[in-house]
């Protein structure tokens, strides 16, 4: 009997177990999942929770509810992987041996990595994160009680989980205060370490106006050095200062600490893998899936979903000693909330940037790409049902794993346009 051990029972871990449970012979393989708790959170909902769209109980279900029967579920903290011995050590002293290991332990916001951010005088009092349930709930109350002033939405460092979420948050907050008839009392500043809110050419051409139209100020190229909790000010590496009344920050995102303790991670605890098949660059029986790997794609559930469709096929080939024949292209597909019941949709991969057009079918769509539409907002809301009922359980969803150019408008090549990095 061989053992497949999956570390993490989140979006990626749950999907991969459901796929492989069907594909692997139960007489040959046993599957075990380890996670520290039994709460599976619907993470896209955390963005909408502060605006009263959801109640917290709609966003949490039991992890083991989504695991097929016959799969062992161990609730424990992980101490480390010992890849030389093919063992995982748990904090409670237990040792689990494996034949194949899948690391799917995700990425986590780490406010402790920026001096002053998690200072108890300000953390979740005037500085908030929304990628955790307690953070999102605290922010909901802070927005409700906000009387006016400067709200700064801030990205600490890339990569972050669901990279468009801070922009969506800003659009939704703009709509929220407009609806409460107090928008003129609120100043918004969007602070990013990147050169702009949109960095891909087609996106910045089609969406660049979205911040101006909403009177949201942009502060690009801002790398925070520390936060002064007393004056409530963000201070950058080049000594720019941005004071705030309320800071909505996305802290540094890092992979799990056990990855660092195991010597398996890069400088942000992500596991270096082949970006086409997710096999560890160091060990032939370790894979990393979802946000836990270092692939240069968005850290998002849609990427994990497309990746795992291909991984499951590859894994069966691999354990039978055959070459892996499916190569992942970095496909991502995200609804972007833009406020007032509208949304945008983007579809892209490692090499093709988000383009305009219709999705998934040419002309009829129904979802327009890179354009505000009520359909896209409805798509986002419908996705919660799809997530709990189809996606996690590994059921069929009518979007192919590899990106398609159907219905998309290609960009015409421009000749002789040369700018330089000082712009």
């Amino acid at each position, binding site marked *: 009997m061989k053992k497949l051990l999956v570390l993490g029972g989140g979006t990626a871990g749950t999907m991969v177990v459901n796929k492989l449970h069907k594909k692997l012979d139960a007489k040959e393989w046993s599957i075990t999942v380890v996670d520290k708790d039994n709460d599976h959170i619907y993470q896209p909902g955390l963005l909408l929770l502060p605006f009263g769209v959801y109640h917290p109980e709609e966003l949490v279900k039991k992890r083991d509810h989504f695991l097929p029967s016959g799969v062992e579920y161990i609730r424990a903290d992980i101490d480390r992987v010992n890849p030389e011995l093919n063992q995982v050590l748990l904090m409670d002293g237990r040792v689990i041996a494996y034949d194949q290991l899948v690391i799917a332990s995700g990425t986590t916001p780490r406010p402790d990595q920026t001096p002053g951010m998690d200072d108890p005088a300000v953390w979740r009092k005037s500085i908030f994160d929304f990628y955790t349930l307690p953070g999102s709930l605290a922010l909901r109350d802070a927005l409700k009680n906000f009387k006016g002033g400067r709200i700064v939405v801030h990205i600490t*460092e*890339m990569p972050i989980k669901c*990279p*468009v979420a801070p*922009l969506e948050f800003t659009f939704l907050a703009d709509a929220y205060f407009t609806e409460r008839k107090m928008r003129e009392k609120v100043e918004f500043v969007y602070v990013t*370490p*990147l*050169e*702009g809110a*949109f*960095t*891909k*050419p087609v*996106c910045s051409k089609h*969406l660049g106006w979205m911040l101006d139209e909403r009177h949201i100020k942009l502060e690009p*190229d801002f*790398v925070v*050095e520390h936060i002064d909790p007393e004056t409530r000010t963000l201070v950058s*590496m*080049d000594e720019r200062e941005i004071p705030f009344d309320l800071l909505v920050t996305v802290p540094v995102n890092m992979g799990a600490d056990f990855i660092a303790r195991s010597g398996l991670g890069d*400088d*942000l605890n992500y596991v270096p893998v082949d970006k086409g098949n997710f096999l560890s660059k160091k060990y032939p029986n370790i894979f990393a899936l979802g946000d836990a790997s270092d692939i*240069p794609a*968005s850290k998002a559930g849609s990427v994990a979903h497309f990746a795992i469709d291909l991984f499951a096929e590859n894994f069966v080939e691999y354990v039978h000693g055959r070459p892996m024949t499916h190569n992942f292209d970095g496909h991502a597909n995200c609804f*972007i909330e833009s406020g007032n019941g509208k949304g945008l949709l*983007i579809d892209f991969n490692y090499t093709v940037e*988000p383009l305009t057009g219709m999705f998934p079918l040419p002309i009829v769509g129904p979802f327009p790409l890179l354009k505000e539409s009520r359909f896209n907002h409805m798509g986002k809301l419908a996705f919660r049902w799809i997530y709990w009922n189809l996606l996690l359980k590994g059921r069929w969803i009518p979007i192919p794993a590899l990106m398609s150019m159907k219905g998309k408008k290609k960009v015409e*090549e*421009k*000749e*002789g*346009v*040369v*700018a*330089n*990095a*000082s712009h």
Partner: protein
Amino acid sequence: MPVIEVAGKQVNVNEEGFLTKYDEWNEEIAKVLAKQIDIELTDAHWKIIKFLREDFKTEGETATSRRVQTVGGVPVKDQFALFPKKPAKKMAYIAGLPKPKGCV
């Protein structure tokens, strides 16, 4: 994509002027690119540029500011002093590598 002449050599660049072919870069080109964005290259600049070139060869991605700090040994604050305002973008531009990635 356009082809332009830099330091007497034809090179492929993207619409923002970043070199798109790793092997077309050389130190003379770096000096010209640096001058275009008002940077006079010193040993401290070269240390970073050489690190970025070597690192790209093994990793296939432009090193982040964090990586230049932890692996290359130059603190982010110093990167800002050497390449004012936009260190990640300017370092990549001079080193002939793709600029750091965003999402949309």
